[in-house]
């Protein structure tokens, strides 16, 4: 079911802008301001910038398409679809790929996007599928630097205000080639804790807020409108320095009782996994072991020194999981001492930033500070190599959830979001 939803989201986002999608029986209403809150603090939406913080990266990848667009986009099947490029073909020598730019595309300052020569040529003899996947990556968004230094895109919204630590504002791009978005503006409050977001939602200061996974079910039961993605982040243990020997890393991986955490702490949300990429994306996640074997862990961890263990203690999901992992590890004879700053082991949420295994692995490689996977590499081999090299221990793949005010339609397809004035607040 989640998969179906995701597919429909992706399909809609992929196809909607081809010419402008006709909406449903209830017609969207133009206008209004959408107020969104999130935990992450994102300094910039600039596609050239890569946030080191996983949460910021997830936020960047979520919001970038609202402002910046790529030549192609991936559809619900992970297949590249025409976007700013309407078609492509290779030259006679099969050494270059030539992309035809979409007409009537304008940057957010009104200037036309017109590549020199009326076409975009890539001297690249790789198979087109690889090139298209690469072009669909957020890093390859089409941008332009205005005279005043402002970074402009071609997307449905333009950045009106984006200062670090302050609410960001996106306003509708009236000249968007796919038709002006319904909303007049989107205000994004960053760096809000889940508790603050829940409060703001309660007092009608926000239209869309993030929701803890464990609260998702109860929110649905209460009749609150929620939105949920398929697993879009991987909970993993990372080894930040080279201090932890491989046998202790293996012991730690074997010591963790993922089933108990999944059943109790995560309320069976998401999936147990030993892989970086979720199964819906890769299909082979089950190949990476995630079973517990305390006896073997004890053998491997004999005489292991205490490890410093860090995680975001303000994160209501990470905290109990981190505590449980420390308890599990202790059973195998590994002491995890809570610490801050650089730690031997860190529990993190790694975002799955794209609907394509290679693009998702590309961002994960940057987060894990590993070499990017080759475009020609088999995704399984690339993921396995990245896991072997980083020593990371993936634990779970978790969906992302939001609570929406009932008047909000089409979240999170930014260009299609509209606010229903007749809906209850």
């Amino acid at each position, binding site marked *: 079911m989640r*998969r179906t939803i995701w*597919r*429909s989201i992706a399909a*809609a986002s992929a*196809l909607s802008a*081809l*010419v*402008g*999608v*006709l*909406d*449903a*029986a*209830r*017609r*969207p*209403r*133009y206008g209004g301001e959408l107020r969104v809150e999130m935990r992450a603090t994102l300094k910039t939406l600039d596609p050239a910038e890569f946030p080191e913080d996983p949460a910021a990266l997830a936020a960047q990848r979520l919001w970038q398409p609202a402002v910046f667009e790529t030549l192609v986009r991936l559809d*619900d*099947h*992970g*297949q*590249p*679809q*025409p976007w700013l490029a*309407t*078609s*492509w*073909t290779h030259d006679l020598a099969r050494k270059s790929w030539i992309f*035809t730019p*979409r*007409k*009537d595309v304008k940057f957010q300052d009104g200037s036309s996007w017109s590549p020199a020569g009326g076409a975009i040529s890539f001297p690249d003899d790789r198979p*087109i*599928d690889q090139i*298209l996947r690469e072009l669909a990556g957020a890093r390859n968004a089409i941008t332009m630097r205005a005279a005043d230094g402002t970074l402009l895109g071609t997307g449905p919204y333009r950045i009106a205000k984006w200062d670090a630590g302050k609410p960001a504002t996106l306003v509708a791009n*009236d000249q*968007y*080639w*796919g*038709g*002006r978005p*319904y909303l007049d503006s989107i205000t994004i409050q960053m760096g809000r804790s889940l508790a603050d977001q829940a409060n703001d939602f309660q007092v009608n200061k926000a239209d869309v807020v993030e929701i803890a996974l464990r609260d998702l079910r109860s929110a649905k039961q209460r009749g609150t409108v929620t939105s949920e993605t398929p697993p879009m982040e991987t909970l993993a243990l990372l080894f930040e320095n080279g201090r932890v020997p491989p046998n202790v890393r293996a012991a730690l991986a074997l010591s963790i009782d993922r089933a108990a955490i999944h059943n109790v702490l995560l309320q069976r949300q998401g999936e147990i996994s030993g892989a970086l990429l979720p*199964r*819906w994306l*890769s*299909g*082979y996640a*089950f*190949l990476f072991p995630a079973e517990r074997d305390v006896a073997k862990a004890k053998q491997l961890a004999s005489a292991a020194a205490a490890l410093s263990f860090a995680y975001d203690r303000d994160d209501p999901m990470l905290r109990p999981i981190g505590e449980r992992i420390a308890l599990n590890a202790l059973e195998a004879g590994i002491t995890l001492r809570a610490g801050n700053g650089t730690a031997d082991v860190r529990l993190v949420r790694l975002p799955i930033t794209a*609907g394509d*295994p290679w693009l998702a692995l590309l961002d994960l490689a940057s987060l894990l500070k590993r070499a990017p996977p080759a475009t020609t590499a088999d995704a*399984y081999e690339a993921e396995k190599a990245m896991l072997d090299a980083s020593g990371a221990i993936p634990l779970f793949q978790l969906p992302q959830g939001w609570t929406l005010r009932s008047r909000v*339609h*089409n979240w999170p397809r930014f*260009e*299609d979001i509209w606010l*229903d*004035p*007749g809906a209850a607040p």
Partner: protein
Amino acid sequence: MMRDVGRGICLFFLCMAANAQTLDDAVSALAKKISSRLAPAEIARLTTRNLSSLPAADAAKIQPALTRALQRRVRDAKTVDIAVTISENLRGYLLVAEIKREGDVSIEMAEFRAGAPAAAAARPAASVEGRLVWEQEAPMLDLALSGDQMLVLDTAGVWLYSRNAGKWERSAQAPISTNVRDPRGRLQVSGDIVSIDVPGITCKGPANLSSSIHCEEGGRFTAGRNTLSSDGREFFTTADIGGDTLVAELDGRTHIYDAAHTAQGVFDVWGSDFVGVSACGARLVLAATDNDRRSPDSVALYDFSNRATVRVSDPVEFAGPVTALWPAGDGALAVVRNLKSGKYAAYNLALDCSR
């Protein structure tokens, strides 16, 4: 522009075809890969499991097919355990073989896409019959049938089709650019003249598109919006029902006004599209359901005689949201976006008062 898009889509499908093998192709490919991993003296011992949504019947075919493909006669054979998992990802299904030898596991995979089940044909209810008139890829806004000719308005413009040997063939085109999110358009043929309204533009010309049509700013639709405009007011739909006027307003609700334009009530049952029909001796409305566009819609006939919405027909279920609903003859024309195929289909909705 359409040509470009078409080429892009063609390439896309070619691309998909490369990955989208059939189940049989995938089994064959996987068997080949596994064979290349097996030494001459090794034979495979297969086990399979299904972690995907592939129907059990299809899944059950895989092990025998693979076993057959891997069958070989070897003396003093050494058995290699191969665990085959049927999995899936967003691109389709995945056959994953884990070839297990002592202390070593090698992996082989093959992808395939199951044959998409045929889209369920929309079967109109007894009182309202929906008949498929036309289906196309591009977002369709309106359609008008006139004998052997058919005018189709979509986001690129107006297309004239002529029936030839039972098939519709495109014969002329008049481009009209519609750069609006949730675009709408209205096509009305009056004699030999066709008038076209799209957001911010109104056009008029010969119905056979023999000469260019004349367009100018203005018209019924608000420029850059998905609403209709009248007297400075914006709304989605309006219908006159026996002296009352029903207006789907921007608050998402349907407002009732009497002949003196005095508000008489408001209700929240229908979507933004409805058509008033005078049939069966009552004040009837054909209205689409109030869903969002991720869900299939239905259209039903409502009796509004007492300013109350009483459904008087079974709903006509469609395979996607109704994106347009315009009066057509005694009934209506509904444009539906098929959620599975992504295509837009126009249905003629005819009323049958006898039921």
